[in-house]
Each structure stands twice: as structure tokens, then as C-alpha cells.
């Protein structure tokens, strides 16, 4: 145990806290260990969710009071190790090395100590003081595991604090330990893992060779170990730093030890194994766990799909049967009421201000916000399935199908979320660990008909097709999914040459949902939606409104109408006159705007009056074509904004927009042509 330990400076004692600096605490741990649960518990609403600079990985930072002193808390992304296998791992280790938190709290799962200590084996060698929070004790107890905290603590040489984050048990003790480490009362004597004997010499030689060339803030020993592990980032870094002949010497050693990656990992697991044998008492195995029983159905290639279908059905049924009436109420009484109130209040103001607020802002942003209840219910159902552990099973049974399109089992999650709203769906693609599949998922997500598009389709279908309305609407949902599927295959061949991405995913244990976790998910997703409505949609609504009133305040001769007339020839190919074309264009601001715009350009308001005007004005063929165009048209402005943000490039965003434009014109043109030939 000594060899490596000697070269690492024993940390905690060496470090004194800076008196005038706010102490910084980082939460680290593998995925699903309860970091965010603890983070939310400690910081409450004093938190800020953003992105790590230049990365599409969520960054959460907050503050809380520890004995009257404010401390900063950062929730690091969940990572299985600290080797550069993914952006998350690089973020976590760079943060610890560069920001040098005063304490790192590593969350491990008492129910799965062996696997979760792996990250601790890495963290303990870094120069920040470490505290291990032994979370999920309730689950461990259920499974009959007994863990001796004293022995664990002695074996690791750092404090170990038992915790049940979901019930806030042990949090006070954890805070006390953090305080004691911060003020130097507790001295850590970490006991570090060592690597297998046959590679120890190599490690020493590499450290020796590179010492003096390693840039701040990286510890030399640590870099040597990561080079042995074949870490891509640090290998590149050191290639730039080392002089030619040293690099060659290092390279020669690495070539002789090309199995070192597994040796290093084995070494860590041996270290863990010794600790576990001493500290954990397991019940004799025998009984079949709940997870195993449920998975016989949920992960079965056939029954799993049937179950998934049922689950989706229930989610949609619940969402719309509860959400739709609320939305209707909000539209008529909420926004409608507000509009008449504003009209009255602005009676003496210039007419254009009234029009801006009522038609522009309330009509645009307001009508978008009426979707919030539907979305919140949908997000709640989705978050519940996520929290219970079911979503991993959904991803698993969908993997085969998703791979046909070059997507990934996990792509199913964002696509499903897309039925609520495409905006969080595009952001949700972050769960996919293959860059290629993630990009492809983002590119096809806008084909998923969101609630707003479904509302438009439901309205038009009801107006034109009476009792067949449901069949027609369903037909368009199926059409969208088929188009998504074909587009996936096409784009995968075209851009990615059909290369298959790796599928590696942990299947977590099922567990009882935690209402705080689900609630917070709903809150954050809804908030993101409201923010989009308040920014992107607001500005686009105003621009659109300006286009409808300039130059002389009349819609028929406005710039928008002018533009509509100008591109009418294209619309005519799909049986759309300038009004329908303008309605389609306005759906770019927000999908459900199509209805409001039709109300304006046909001068008939909304609801039944509009429906009757529509039937009088347009053929069934035009209606069918308009529905296809609406379903497949370019993503709404808010979705475009997040696509740009998540892909990090306008190139992919424009590719998606032009692709969808072509697809929507092609399909609605074809449908119009077929429908007129059949004389529908």
C-alpha cells in the first residue's frame, strides 16, 4: 500500500482553508447515487442550473449555510470513473484539480458498494480532502446487507457518513463532518489503492520520465497512472508537453504494458474487494429480487414491448384527459379573460399598443403558456417512470428498433418526451452517450408531433372530418412516426455511413418514486419551457405581429400577406392558398399559432365560427395537405434555438430545417395530389 501513497502528498493536513474565501464543496459519485437528491436537500431553491462551459452537460451550483457561514456546493456530473471516456468524466476531474474544492463528498451506494467504490478509488488519490457519504442505507437494509461503518472508515482512511438522502437522514452528521474537515479538526489519512505488481515498475519509470513536464494543476503521479490507463486527453496533453526523446521513452513503456488499463482497474477492484470483505456482511443469496421478477416482463423482447405500449397509452390518456380540459379553460377564461381585461385597461392607449399586447403577446406567448398544464402532467408521468427505473427498460427493449435508424436505445427517452414538447426532448438527448446517435436523435426529434401540433390537427380534423376526426388525427401521428423512421434511416446512411454505436447501459434497481425528485424534474422542465416562451417565443411573436400590422395596419395588405401572396405559387402545389400558407409559416413561432393566424386572416375569430368558415373555404384535399404540412413543417423557433444550443452548430440546425421543409412539402404535395385525384 505504501509505494504510491508516498509519492502523493497526504492532502488534508497540508491544506488550510482560506479565511476570506467561501468554502467550496463538490458532490461526486457515479450516476444514480443520490448526488442531486442531496444537493437539492442542502441548497433548496438557492441553486442555479446552467451548463459547463462549452459542454452540453448540466452544471448545478448552489449555496447553503454551514454554522452561519455560506458555503458553495457543486453537483458534479455522475461518472463511473475519472478516465476521459466521456465529457462528464473530464468535467468532474478538471473541476476537482483546477478549482481545488475544500472538500469532495463522494456519494456511494450502500446497496452496491463494490461498484460505487470504484470512483472513490480514483477520487481518493486526488489532492482534495474526501468524505464518503454512504447513501441508500435503506435499500441495503432491505436487501439484508450489513455494513460496518467503522471498519469501512478505517480501511479508507477518510470519514464515512451513513446517509439516506431521500429521507434526509444523516445529513446533520454529514454537515458536522464537513465542518470538522474544513476547520482542520478531522485529519484524513487516506489509504490509496495500488496497481498490480507487474506494472508498478512501469508506473514509477513513467512518473520519473515525465516529472518536470507536467503542467499545473495535474499531479505527476496521477498523470503517469492515467497515461498507463491510456487516457486519451492526457495522452494528447503530454504529447504536446514532452520533448521528443522523452515521449518516445514513455511510448516504449506504454507499448510493453498495453494491458495496463485492465491491470489498473483490477488493482482498484482488489483494493475494493479487501475493504468489502472486511466491512460488509451479505445475507446468503437465494431469494429472487423484485427487480429480477419485474424484468422478466419489462425487459422481455416481446412482452416488454407490449408493456411499453400499454404504459405509453396510459401516459397519453392521463395527460390529455386531465390536461386538455384545463387547457381549454385557460384559453377561454385565462387568456381570453386577460385579453378582454387588457383591452379595457388600455382603452385610452393608442390602438397599436392594445393590438401588440392582445394579438401579439397574449396571442403568441399566452396561447403557448396554456399548454403548460398538459406539459406538466406529461413531464410528471415521464419523470415518475424515469425515477422508478422503468425508462432504462424502455430503452432496452427499444434498442433493436432504434438501431435500425442509427439511433440508440436511450434515444427512445427524448423521442418520447418529444410528444409533450420538442424543446425538452432536444435537451433530453444528452442522456445518449454516443455522440453520433445523439446528433441523429436531435435531427429527427422534431418529427415527433408535440402537444401543440396535436392540438392543431385535432381542431382541423374535427372541423373537416366529423366523426372520423380521431382516425384522421391518429393517421397523421402514424405518418409522422413513419417519416421519422425513414428520415432516421436516410440520414444515418447519408451522414454517418450507417456506423453502429455502442450500447452499454446500467439497468438500475426498481425503486419507489421519490416525490421531491419527480416534482423537481417537472418544475425544471416546465421552467425551461416558460423561459423559452418568455424569450424566443416572445420576440418572434412581436416580430410576427409587426409583420401583420405594417405598413398600414391592415392584415390583408400587410407585409405578411404580401409575403404570403408572393410564395402562394409554392403553397398552391399543396393546395394551400395564401392564408393557409401564412398560417403554416406562423406555426414557426409556435405550432398552435396556425389556428390563431387562420382566425385572423379569415376574419372569423376562433372556435366553431372558424371551423365553419374553414369548411366553407377549403376542400378536404386542401385540409389533408395542410395537416401533413403542419405535422412535418420546420421545428418551432424555440426548438430551433435549443437545437443550435445542443448541437453547438448552425450547420446541423439548418440541415434539419431544410430537410424538414423538403419533407413537409413533398408529403403534403403528394397527399394533395392523391386526394384530388381520388376526388376526396
Amino acid at each position, binding site marked *: 500500500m505504501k509505494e504510491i501513497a508516498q509519492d502523493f502528498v497526504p492532502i488534508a493536513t497540508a491544506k488550510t482553508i482560506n479565511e476570506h474565501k467561501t468554502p467550496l464543496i463538490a458532490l461526486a459519485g457515479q450516476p444514480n447515487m443520490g448526488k442531486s437528491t442531496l444537493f437539492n436537500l442542502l441548497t433548496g431553491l438557492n441553486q442555479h442550473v446552467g451548463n459547463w462551459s462549452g459542454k452540453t452537460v448540466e452544471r448545478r451550483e448552489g449555496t447553503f449555510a454551514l454554522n452561519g457561514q455560506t458555503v458553495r456546493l457543486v453537483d458534479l456530473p455522475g461518472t463511473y470513473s475519472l478516465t476521459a471516456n466521456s465529457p462528464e468524466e473530464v468535467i468532474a476531474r478538471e473541476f476537482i484539480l483546477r478549482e481545488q474544492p475544500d472538500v469532495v463528498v463522494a456519494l456511494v451506494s450502500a446497496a452496491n458498494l463494490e*461498484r460505487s467504490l*470504484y470512483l472513490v478509488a480514483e477520487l481518493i488519490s486526488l489532492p482534495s480532502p474526501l468524505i464518503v457519504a454512504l447513501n441508500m442505507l435503506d435499500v441495503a437494509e432491505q436487501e439484508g446487507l450489513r455494513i460496518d461503518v467503522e471498519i469501512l472508515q478505517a480501511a479508507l482512511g477518510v470519514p464515512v457518513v451513513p446517509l439516506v438522502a431521500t429521507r434526509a437522514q444523516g445529513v446533520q452528521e454529514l454537515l458536522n463532518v464537513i465542518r470538522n474537515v474544513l476547520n482542520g479538526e478531522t485529519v484524513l489519512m487516506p489509504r490509496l489503492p495500488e496497481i498490480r505488481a507487474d506494472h508498478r515498475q512501469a508506473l514509477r519509470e513513467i512518473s520519473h520520465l515525465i516529472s518536470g513536464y507536467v503542467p499545473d494543476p495535474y499531479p505527476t503521479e496521477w498523470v503517469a497512472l492515467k497515461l498507463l490507463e491510456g487516457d486519451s486527453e492526457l495522452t494528447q496533453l503530454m504529447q504536446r508537453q514532452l520533448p521528443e526523446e522523452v515521449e518516445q521513452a514513455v511510448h516504449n513503456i506504454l507499448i510493453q504494458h498495453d494491458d495496463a488499463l485492465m491491470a489498473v482497474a483490477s488493482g482498484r477492484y482488489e483494493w475494493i474487494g479487501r475493504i468489502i470483505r472486511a466491512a460488509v456482511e451479505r445475507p446468503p443469496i437465494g431469494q429472487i429480487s423484485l427487480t429480477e421478477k419485474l*424484468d422478466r416482463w419489462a425487459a422481455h423482447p416481446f412482452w416488454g414491448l407490449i408493456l411499453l405500449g400499454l404504459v405509453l397509452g396510459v401516459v397519453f390518456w392521463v395527460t390529455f384527459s386531465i390536461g386538455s380540459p384545463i387547457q381549454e379553460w385557460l384559453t377561454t377564461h385565462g387568456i381570453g379573460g386577460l385579453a378582454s381585461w387588457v383591452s379595457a385597461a388600455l382603452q385610452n392607449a393608442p390602438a397599436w399598443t392594445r393590438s401588440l399586447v392582445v394579438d401579439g403577446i397574449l396571442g403568441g406567448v399566452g396561447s403557448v403558456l396554456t399548454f403548460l398544464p398538459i406539459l406538466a402532467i406529461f413531464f410528471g408521468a415521464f419523470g415518475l417512470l424515469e425515477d422508478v427505473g422503468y425508462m432504462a427498460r424502455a430503452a*432496452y427493449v427499444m434498442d433493436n428498433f432504434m438501431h435500425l435508424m442509427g439511433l440508440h436505445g436511450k434515444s427512445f427517452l427524448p423521442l418520447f418526451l418529444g410528444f409533450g414538447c420538442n424543446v425538452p426532448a432536444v435537451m433530453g438527448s444528452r442522456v445518449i452517450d454516443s455522440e453520433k446517435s445523439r446528433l441523429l436523435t436531435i435531427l429527427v426529434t422534431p418529427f415527433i408531433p408535440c402537444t401543440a401540433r396535436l392540438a392543431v390537427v385535432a381542431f382541423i380534423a374535427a372541423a373537416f372530418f366529423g366523426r372520423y376526426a380521431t382516425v384522421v388525427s391518429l393517421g397523421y401521428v402514424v405518418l409522422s412516426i413513419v417519416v421519422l423512421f425513414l428520415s432516421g434511416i436516410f440520414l444515418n446512411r447519408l451522414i454517418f455511413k450507417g456506423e453502429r454505436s455502442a450500447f*452499454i447501459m446500467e439497468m438500475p434497481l426498481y425503486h419507489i418514486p421519490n416525490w421531491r425528485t419527480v416534482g423537481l424534474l417537472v418544475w425544471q422542465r416546465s421552467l425551461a419551457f416558460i423561459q423559452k416562451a418568455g424569450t424566443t417565443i416572445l420576440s418572434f411573436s412581436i416580430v410576427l405581429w409587426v409583420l401583420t400590422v405594417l405598413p398600414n395596419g391592415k392584415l390583408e395588405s400587410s407585409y405578411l400577406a404580401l409575403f404570403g401572396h408572393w410564395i402562394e405559387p409554392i403553397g398552391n402545389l399543396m393546395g394551400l392558398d395564401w392564408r393557409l400558407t401564412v398560417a403554416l409559416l406562423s406555426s414557426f413561432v409556435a405550432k398552435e399559432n396556425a389556428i390563431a393566424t387562420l382566425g385572423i386572416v379569415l376574419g372569423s375569430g376562433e372556435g366553431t365560427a372558424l371551423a365553419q368558415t374553414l369548411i366553407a373555404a377549403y376542400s378536404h384535399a386542401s385540409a389533408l395537405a395542410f395537416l401533413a404540412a403542419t405535422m412535418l413543417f420546420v421545428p418551432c423557433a424555440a426548438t430551433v434555438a435549443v437545437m443550435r444550443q445542443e448541437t453547438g452548430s448552425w450547420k446541423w440546425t439548418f440541415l434539419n430545417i431544410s430537410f424538414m421543409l423538403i419533407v413537409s412539402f413533398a408529403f403534403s404535395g403528394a397527399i394533395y395530389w392523391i386526394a384530388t385525384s381520388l376526388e376526396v
Partner: protein
Amino acid sequence: MAKPNGMDCSLIDLQTGEHALMVDMRGGKGLVGRLTSLGFTPGVELTMIQNMGRGPLIVLVRDTRIALGRGEAAQILVKRNDR
């Protein structure tokens, strides 16, 4: 059991319910890195939870259920083990 113990085979050859010890792993650094950090190291005991002959499989390693694509699983060499 039809197949003899002790011969090396790939993880995808294991039937549902069979146990094995991991022997070695092939594949690029990225794949090996991810799998080792999930607990796949030589000598570890693996249990096949589900292998339906097609589609991804589920393996139990160090008390964790991991779903693996067949391509990834094919890179893992194992030795059958009846406990």
C-alpha cells in the same frame, strides 16, 4: 449442461442463467475503458440474466445489471463456471 466447462468463449455464447468468469477483453481503448469502470475486469464473475439470441443482453456483474449490445458483448471473453 451441454457445453463443457473450462473453454473460453465470448459473452454472447452464454445462455440465460449461466455463470462465467471473465478472461479478457478486446476492442478499442474507449470500449475497454468504459467496461472496466463498470466492473468488467479479468477474473470477475458474470451471470447472464437475459440472452434471447438477438438484441442486447443483460449481464450481472458486481451486483449491477448491465445491458450490453451484442457487438460489445462479443468483445468480452469468458470461461464458463458452474459455481
